């Protein structure tokens, strides 16, 4: 056992996956020699060699497109996109090809690859380094989209994503990359490669990050720790116990966990960093209204980023959902 950050937990997962299966290869800009700008892939070049850990030319369509070709030939590529915004040149490859390869081959040749995207704000990054593009991918049939929040989830979900035959967009909240440590075991969390489909379980279930029965707050990734803080404040200030649901899987959504939380609490709030319109919050809200309206005491409210370009960092705190904004949103639902 050792205390690990999310970066270290992801690094452990990549070591474990590459150790277990020599079809796993890593591609990306600066992933080999430097171990990635966030060091998620540190040490892998030394351990597995330059054929399997590759510093590529700087071209995201080329990287993702090559990875698709590799997957067709039976490798299991894990691609690192250096920063959220840099995925856009590769978007076409993801939408037209990666997402449709299974469909276009009678299910025989899915594009089995993982595309890792460090995303979101809060790290005082330069302009165009802080987007939250997850809803763009959620809207593309054929993709799975996931986002871990804890080091253990990051490790387990990375192993599952590599096992999963479908293309997985793996959103890594860079704000919590090193925000905290927890015990992450050196042992594998589940058996790899035995065909038991465990990856489906790991990649489709939400988790309750804080128990409570008065208000459901549904969120994921970078806003989970802030939401927990807001829940603590609500408990102190007005004795309200909020249940915080960490979605983990953005597609498919864990509809049962979402509806169960909303029904039990009768009031629900959705929180995310991405812009509001047609974001995950809209989907979660729609699911709750469609399935649990008779249990609701108030409409579902969203606390999100705004429908504006992500600002330069002097203004990013104005844009990002904060503990204050989440608490205010919660009060609005509670006082409806």
């Amino acid at each position, binding site marked *: 056992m050792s205390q690990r950050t999310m970066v270290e937990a992801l690094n452990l997962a990549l070591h474990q996956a590459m150790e277990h299966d020599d079809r796993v290869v890593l591609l990306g800009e600066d992933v080999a020699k430097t171990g990635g700008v966030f060091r998620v892939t540190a040490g892998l070049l030394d351990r597995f060699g330059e054929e399997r850990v590759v510093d590529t030319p700087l071209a995201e369509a080329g990287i993702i497109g090559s990875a698709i070709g590799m997957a*067709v030939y039976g*490798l299991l590529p894990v691609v690192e996109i250096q920063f959220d915004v840099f995925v856009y040149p590769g978007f076409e490859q993801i939408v037209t*090809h990666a997402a449709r390869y299974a469909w276009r081959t009678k299910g025989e040749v899915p594009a089995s690859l993982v595309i890792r995207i460090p995303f979101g704000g809060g790290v005082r990054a330069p302009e165009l380094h802080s987007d939250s593009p997850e809803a763009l991918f959620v809207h593309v049939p054929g993709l799975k989209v996931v986002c871990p929040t804890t080091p253990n989830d990051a490790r387990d979900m990375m192993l599952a994503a590599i096992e999963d035959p479908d293309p997985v967009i793996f959103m890594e909240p860079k704000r919590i990359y090193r925000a905290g440590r927890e015990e992450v075991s050196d042992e594998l969390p589940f058996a790899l490669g035995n065909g038991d489909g465990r990856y489906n379980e790991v990649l489709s279930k939400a988790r309750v990050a804080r128990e409570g029965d008065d208000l459901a707050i549904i969120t994921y990734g970078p806003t989970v720790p802030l939401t927990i803080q807001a829940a603590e404040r609500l408990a102190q200030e007005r004795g309200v116990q909020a249940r915080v649901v960490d979605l983990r899987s953005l597609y498919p959504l864990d*509809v049962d966990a979402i509806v169960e939380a909303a029904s039990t609490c009768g009031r629900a709030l959705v929180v995310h960093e991405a812009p509001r319109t047609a974001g995950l919050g809209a989907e979660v809200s729609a699911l709750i209204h469609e399935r649990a309206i008779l249990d609701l005491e108030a409409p579902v409210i969203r606390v999100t980023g705004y429908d504006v370009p992500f600002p330069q960092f002097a203004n990013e705190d104005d844009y990002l959902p904060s503990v204050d904004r989440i608490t205010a949103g919660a009060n609005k639902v509670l006082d409806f």
Partner: protein
Amino acid sequence: MSEILRIIGDGKEIPDAGVPDGLSDKDLVEMYRWLVLLRTFDERAVALQRQGRIGTYALYWGEEATQAGALYACAATDWVFPSYRQNSIGILRGVPAATVLAWWRGFGGVHGFWNPREHRVAPICVPIATHLPHAVGLAWAAKIKHESTASLTWFGDGATSEGDFHEAMNFAAVMKTATVFFCVNNQWAISTPIHKQMATATIAEKGAAYAIPAIRVDGFDPLACWKATKEALERGRAGDGPSLVEAYCYRLKAHGTADDPRLYRDESEAGRWMHLEPVGRMAGFLKRLGIMTAEEEESIRAEAKESIAAAVKEMESIEQPGREILFEHVYASGRPWTFDEGLAELEGVERPPEVKPLGPPTGAGAGEEGKTQ
């Protein structure tokens, strides 16, 4: 760079060169058979579209040499990545012609798609140039696995304007993948002529930017296409990386059945290239060499006609796919819950028994390409 490799003459002013090493008489006749099969498929598909029996179709009439010649140079284990212009290339690798026709008929699922691993033929790429990085990645993967598999991908002159062309060329060169970039320069991208597509005089010279050896060949000459591809594959397998082949030709017909070239070009220009078209030219060459008799030629044509006719029959015997195919094979890991909801919703909806193609257009160009039949 502007020199063009040509082996087969036109029986008149252009003399024949010798048969390249490595091709027996049997190979030459087999290659002719391939050309005829492709031609027959294409002409039949255009006719089917005109009759309202398949949907819009992208034809390749006149480009058979770039397909059959290049494919004939490949090992059976090599992978090929076609664009829609090489839509039927799979039939030379065991993909049923009925499957390709079914795709144009608007059928998906098990009817319109195939397993690429079974034939080493990737799915037809519809967007432009986006399959090029796949060909690179595949050969790259083979290299990682220490296997000698090479990849070949076809694309048009217009595709060289796309970023994916440049990214793929650069990746292949840097990673030294055994990839053949086979550009069919037919000088037209729908209505856009080559001089509006690029400022370079040739496509081959673009290879220099990536340190990729390039060659220009007569794209109507199957043996020139074969020889250039063969040499490119040998370089690739020797570890010397990718090659670029520019097959210079002319788009003799429309871009597709919905296109009317009279709107943007002087069709007499196509007439000036017509005598170079590959099927008649290869037949003339084989007859001049005494390798194929008129009877053999006739029997090859008859056999192709029969085989495509059977494929048409097979395609037309396919029943309208059920609504459940919408939700099949989208995910290899299983069906997400939203699919069950979708299917349940559809079950209560009335549905027409058969969705037919819209049939031929009634505009100015209607019927033009159908005359090739």
